[in-house]
């Protein structure tokens, strides 16, 4: 009879508060469609969305870059909840279809068993609200977590008022709480034009749409409509700086660029505004997919790292599906929610079928003939790289790439230790990214540890892409050659007293030791019985266990 090590996890497997056959994460177009489809197939379905997010989380630019431009009303949770529900009529349909809709609920982790995690009775999600956290286990998971803004820094981008297009869109449409009157939109692709139109629709003046290219990149008709409503387009320009009183954006200075995209001097123009909205592109939010171990691959035309999925939107992990922007985003999906909806419907059907709620034949029938999705638009990584190059020219190398940890571009590419160490040695001076590259290919996680870029409370949401782009540029490689920097739980920064479990099994508390609890491990080597050949260590172990 094998003994049990009571200091180990044996018998202490976490117990989820609930079990739900299907959980859908994200109540955007894809998530709601997935939940409704699955529920209609008779599957007990829970649909979770983190909005309304609490003010403190927003202030950290989590989950989107809100740039401190929230109106005080966001502190009124009840009001925000009302607005979120109002802004998303599909939620009512989901509710009617019998879906258990949970709003204002963070998904901070996905836990799955594996070769080193065996004491997990079933896959489960870590959920939380502002007060507590809990675990819910599932049989199938559909991740419809959306996408997040690509942010590129410029001088002054730490100021309140620098926000991302999806952060701005959330504040405009879902929260109706954007605190800005005059917006400069950076980027004239579909995302930029969409953002400018959205701002106008909500009574916000668009002071300019700025574009590095010498022409507007997005749809001509859409640009023309904006121009007719008085929106100035400033093409062939980059940002030199955002200026203002301490900590606030009050204007942005634009610099013209030459044919190669290099800024020229002498013809800067300053535009008064209280917000700069970066609308350069979006990247899929794949953190939960990474945590469950779904295979991701780099597809530049669909926003970078995306999950591999089959025709039912099933990932390489058979219990997990992905739908909508997080499964791969391109600009053709903007203003065309039917694409995400269709993916969600497929995922919902696929999940329901795999749970046995309907047969394969019936699923095929319900699925119908999918309308051909528009092909992905251009790969934007080259475009982002060009923007970054121009911003390095204007802002220089002392602009912070990581705001949380205050790591500058120079410190990143020179792999400098953080300033607070006040370290100085000739050996360190002789080290750089170039010397590191002699030992192996660029690894963002390794450089993160050395420089601390990306190690702060925003969990690298503001700097992940630009760190990758900068390193790729400095190393003379392409971003797809750089391995995906890991995501770790909690994927939302939550307080200890929210994450902690209110009750713990007594075995967890009673048998807790800081390290293994091997009786001889920390015994002084000079004490009797320690320096010896007899009895053997094994004998000591067994004796002390009894």
């Amino acid at each position, binding site marked *: 009879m094998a*003994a*049990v*090590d009571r200091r*180990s*996890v*044996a*018998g202490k497997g976490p*117990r989820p508060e609930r079990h739900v056959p299907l959980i859908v994460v994200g109540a955007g177009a894809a998530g709601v469609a997935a939940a409704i489809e699955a529920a209609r197939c008779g599957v007990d379905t829970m649909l979770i969305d983190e909005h309304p997010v609490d003010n403190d989380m927003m202030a950290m630019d989590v989950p989107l870059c809100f740039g401190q431009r929230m109106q005080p009303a966001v502190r009124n949770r009840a009001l925000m909840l009302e607005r979120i529900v109002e802004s998303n009529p599909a939620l009512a349909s989901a509710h009617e279809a019998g879906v258990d809709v949970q709003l204002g609920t963070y998904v901070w982790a996905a*836990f*799955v068993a594996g*070769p*080193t*995690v*065996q004491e*997990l009775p079933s896959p489960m999600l*870590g959920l939380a609200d502002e007060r507590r956290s809990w*675990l819910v286990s599932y049989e199938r998971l559909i991740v419809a977590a959306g996408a997040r803004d690509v942010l590129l820094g410029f001088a002054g981008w730490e100021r309140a008022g620098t926000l991302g297009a999806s952060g701005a869109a959330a504040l405009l449409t879902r929260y109706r709480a954007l605190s800005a009157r005059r917006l400069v939109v950076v980027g004239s692709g579909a995302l930029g034009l969409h953002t400018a139109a959205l701002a106008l629709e909500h009574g916000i003046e668009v002071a300019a749409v700025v574009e590095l290219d010498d022409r507007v990149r997005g749809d001509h008709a859409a640009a023309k409509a904006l121009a007719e409503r008085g929106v100035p387009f400033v093409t062939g320009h980059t940002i030199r700086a955002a200026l203002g009183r301490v900590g606030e954006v009050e204007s942005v200075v634009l610099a013209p660029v030459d044919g190669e995209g290099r800024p020229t001097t002498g013809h800067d123009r300053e535009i008064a505004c209280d917000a700069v909205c970066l609308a350069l592109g979006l990247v899929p939010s794949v953190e939960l997919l990474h*945590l469950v*171990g779904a295979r991701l691959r780099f597809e530049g035309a669909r926003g970078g790292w995306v999950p591999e999925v089959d025709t039912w939107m099933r990932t390489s992990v058979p219990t997990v599906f992905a739908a909508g922007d997080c499964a791969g985003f391109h600009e053709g999906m903007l203003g065309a929610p039917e694409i995400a909806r269709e993916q969600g419907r497929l995922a919902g059907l696929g999940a329901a079928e795999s749970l046995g709620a309907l047969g394969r034949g019936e699923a095929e029938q319900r699925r119908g003939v999918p309308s051909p999705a528009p092909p992905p638009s251009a790969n934007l990584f080259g475009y982002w790289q060009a923007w970054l190059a121009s911003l390095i020219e204007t802002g220089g190398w002392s602009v912070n790439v990581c705001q949380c*940890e205050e790591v500058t571009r120079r410190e990143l590419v020179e792999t400098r230790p953080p300033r607070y*160490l006040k*370290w100085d*040695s000739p*050996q*360190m001076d002789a*080290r750089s990214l170039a010397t590191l590259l002699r030992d*192996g290919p660029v690894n963002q996680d390794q450089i993160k*540890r*050395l420089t601390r870029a990306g*190690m*702060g*409370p925003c*969990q690298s949401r503001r700097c992940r892409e630009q760190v990758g782009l900068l390193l790729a540029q400095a190393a003379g490689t392409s971003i797809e050659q750089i391995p995906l920097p890991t995501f*770790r739980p*909690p994927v939302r*920064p939550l*307080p*200890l007293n929210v*994450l*902690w*479990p209110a009750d713990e*099994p007594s075995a*967890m508390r009673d048998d*807790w030791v*800081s*390290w*293994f609890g*091997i009786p001889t*491990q*920390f015994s*002084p*080597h000079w004490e009797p019985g320690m*320096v010896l*050949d007899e009895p*053997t*260590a*094994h004998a*000591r*172990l067994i004796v002390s*266990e009894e």
Partner: protein
Amino acid sequence: MTTRGAAVVIVGGGVTGLSAGWWLARAGVDVLVLEKGIVGWEASGRNGGGATHVYSPFGLEEQRLWPQMDGLLGYPTEHQSFRIGVALSEAQLALARRWAEIGEARGFRWELLDRRQVKELVPIVGDNAIGGTYLHFGGHANPQRTVQAYAWALQDCGGRILQHTTVTGLVQRGGRVSAVETTRGTFGADALVVAAGPQTGLFADMLGVALPLAPARVEMIATEPIPLMGVGGVAGNGLYGRQTLRGNLVYGGGPHEWINVPDMVTPEHRNTPLVRNLARRLAELFPGAAHVRMIRAWSGLVENTPDGLPVVDRLASPDNVVIATMSSVGFGLSPASGRAISELVQHGHCSFADLRALALSRFADTPADWRERAGWVATRAEVALAAGGDS
């Protein structure tokens, strides 16, 4: 077959192998470290960073060396001296005292603290603390920075490191290891050091030597930064860890999970809901930081011998091999363990520590099923479900 190689080839670019390599390179020895991934990537670079192991045969050398390491390496380790132990119960206070008294037996100074004194030194401690200890010895360092410092310093002394190179076999000739086979070809070696963490046992098998090792997975959490405390090396309540010089609280502890590592591939290791229990323990230890946000967690793989003590031994046969596993307590002792290994390789004995207690021969009688007997085995989910475990 290529003739590349080195006087000493070290298998494993963890903290122990890197330190050994650095000491050897400092002594002018031609050394090559082979690492299957990136240096210090596994548990070596992600641990509590504690440097307070005076109970060990390496303890005095650990204490002597750490304050000098920044200067010796030429790179920052973030080493900080002294430790504070916080006790929330009499049992915890007894443990903290025991730790302090072990130091006292080695000639180090410590003080017993009452609640008021603990709270003055560690403002985030609450009224649930009953007292503590202040150790005028020991300390902590930044594991990530330190492993890279070893690697760089080793190179600065002329040593070489090959990352992304997995050792797949050992070539023996005339009772000695003459070369190692890797995914990047064969490398000749006059001497071999095996410091391969959880995989060390696999290399012992190749050498026909029985090394009882049980790998396990452990977890840690990190919070956002909070204002720096005077002494960052504060632990208690069943947690180990520290406040980093950036201000993050980084702590681990609690149940481990025994696993199997059957080959040279490090199994994927993830976190579990244990991070919640860690959060609770940490908030109990520091009620004044209960509102602080957890921003990261990670898991790491470590290995233990049956008595939890290191094996640092030069084999009788093949006689040019040193085997080293620190039995899950490797980081803090690394300045000393690396030096001991370098001496074993060069001279066959260690000048500053009695290594008899760390000899492999102590496991000569260990039965093959020792893991089962001790319960140090990988469980299965269905076992866990059956056990249930009510709260």
